């Protein structure tokens, strides 16, 4: 039974911290007050227990961190690639560009597949969001956003709408109509409002809710119809660059990665940060769940991709080579999870064997940084978007 309390939204100065943010209207001793979501969370921690000072709390946090490391180390009995030694190595890969989608006037920043496996939405620095038919390379819809650097775009599960956002600090939903002459911009619906750029957005299992991540360090869950803030996720200490929802069978969690080098796993209903991983040496640009939902991969500016297992609560593999010195901007798994496709800032896409930890192929073709890589919903192809203004479909 879904127990969501809908709070009336407003956007304005918080009664506590005075910053302009989306507000939650709550009652304290029957008095209505407007607090931002961060202040609501902090309220629960106010007041000290007997004998607590900032020093005792600091000491306690250090011992807890030590204990956490100890617990994790105890279970580290073997490496993933050792377990995978007995399985067959993968053969030679023949993957070529099968389609090139040209039409953006500037860097392609983000793309997403439609569940029908043939349509793609892509967004670019020039403010344009284009919906393509990947089989024919035809452009089906084009929207011009009022801002440049549209860093996030997502296709709705029904295929009837797309969401996008970027430097405008908002996430807007555009319903797609079959009438080609219809002005899509007129039907635009502003859903999310952050206090810094929108870095990533994703619909949940329905068209009704959107999850967003922002440069303001938070992630948030919004109701599309009313634009209400349903849940807010605080825990990153810097910009959040990427998020990914767990595959539907495994429940209501999502993972986010940010400039604080941390990857956090969140419970969508409670807003709680349930697990946190901090082994990268630089910003995490991309996070993606393993198809079974038990692990996730990250791509980072430290030129490595890493695999973290949720049940073992630790990093279990690093995908790196001395010759790779440029950051990985985007990662995605193939359908079975055996292959990890990673797009790098050195214009290439590296394909890694997830279990053995080795690289199985390098794909050349883009003439500038690869900014986004996504495998199609049925796993028959993957699409990459680049700063060279094009998208390529590989199969």
């Amino acid at each position: 039974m879904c127990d969501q309390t809908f709070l009336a939204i407003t956007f304005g100065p918080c009664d506590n911290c005075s910053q302009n943010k989306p507000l939650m209207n709550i009652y304290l001793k029957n008095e209505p007050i407007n607090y931002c979501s961060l202040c609501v969370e902090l309220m629960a921690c106010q007041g000290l227990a007997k004998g607590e000072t900032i020093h005792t709390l600091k000491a306690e946090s250090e011992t807890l961190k030590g204990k956490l490391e100890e617990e994790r180390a105890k279970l580290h009995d073997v490496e993933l690639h050792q377990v995978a030694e007995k399985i067959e190595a993968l053969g030679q890969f023949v993957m070529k560009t099968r389609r090139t989608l040209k039409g953006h006037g500037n860097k392609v920043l983000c793309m997403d597949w439609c569940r029908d496996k043939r349509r793609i939405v892509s967004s670019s620095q020039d403010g344009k969001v284009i919906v393509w038919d990947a089989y024919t390379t035809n452009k089906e819809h084009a929207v011009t956003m009022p801002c440049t650097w549209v860093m996030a775009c997502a296709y709705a599960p029904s295929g009837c709408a797309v969401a996008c956002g970027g430097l405008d600090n908002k996430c807007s939903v555009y319903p797609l109509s079959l009438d080609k002459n219809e002005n899509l911009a007129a039907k635009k619906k502003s859903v999310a409002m952050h206090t810094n750029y929108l870095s990533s957005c994703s619909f949940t299992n329905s068209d009704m809710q959107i999850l967003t991540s922002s440069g303001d360090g938070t992630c948030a869950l919004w109701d599309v119809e009313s634009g209400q803030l349903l849940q807010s996720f605080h825990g990153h200490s810097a910009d959040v660059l990427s998020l990914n929802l767990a595959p539907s069978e495994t429940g209501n969690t999502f993972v986010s990665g940010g400039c604080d080098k941390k990857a956090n796993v969140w419970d969508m209903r409670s807003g709680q940060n349930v697990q946190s991983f901090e082994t990268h040496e630089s910003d995490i640009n991309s996070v993606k769940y393993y198809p079974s939902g038990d692990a996730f991969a990250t791509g980072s500016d430290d030129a490595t991709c890493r695999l973290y297992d949720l049940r073992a609560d630790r990093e279990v593999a690093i995908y790196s080579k001395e010759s790779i010195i440029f950051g990985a901007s985007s990662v995605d798994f193939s359908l079975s999870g055996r292959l990890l496709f990673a797009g790098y800032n050195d214009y290439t896409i590296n394909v890694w064997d997830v279990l053995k930890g080795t690289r199985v192929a390098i794909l050349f073709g883009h003439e500038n940084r690869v900014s986004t890589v996504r495998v199609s919903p049925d796993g028959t192809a993957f699409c990459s978007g680049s700063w060279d203004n094009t998208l390529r479909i590989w199969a």
Partner: protein
Amino acid sequence: MSSNSNLTTMKRTVEQLKLEASVDRIKVSQAAADLQQYCLQNASKDALLVGVPAASNPFREPRSCALL
């Protein structure tokens, strides 16, 4: 005021760490075995891994082979 908020933030960090420390964990060998099993079970369905005949992949146009 600022020391109060530092305190609150610190307390929040401690609560968060307590939560993370109490998570149930399994051994890496077990987790790795499960990941491997998932891969192998689904390998046959993975078109990018095993390759599908050109005719059934909508992105690869079936061409007549010219053998030189």
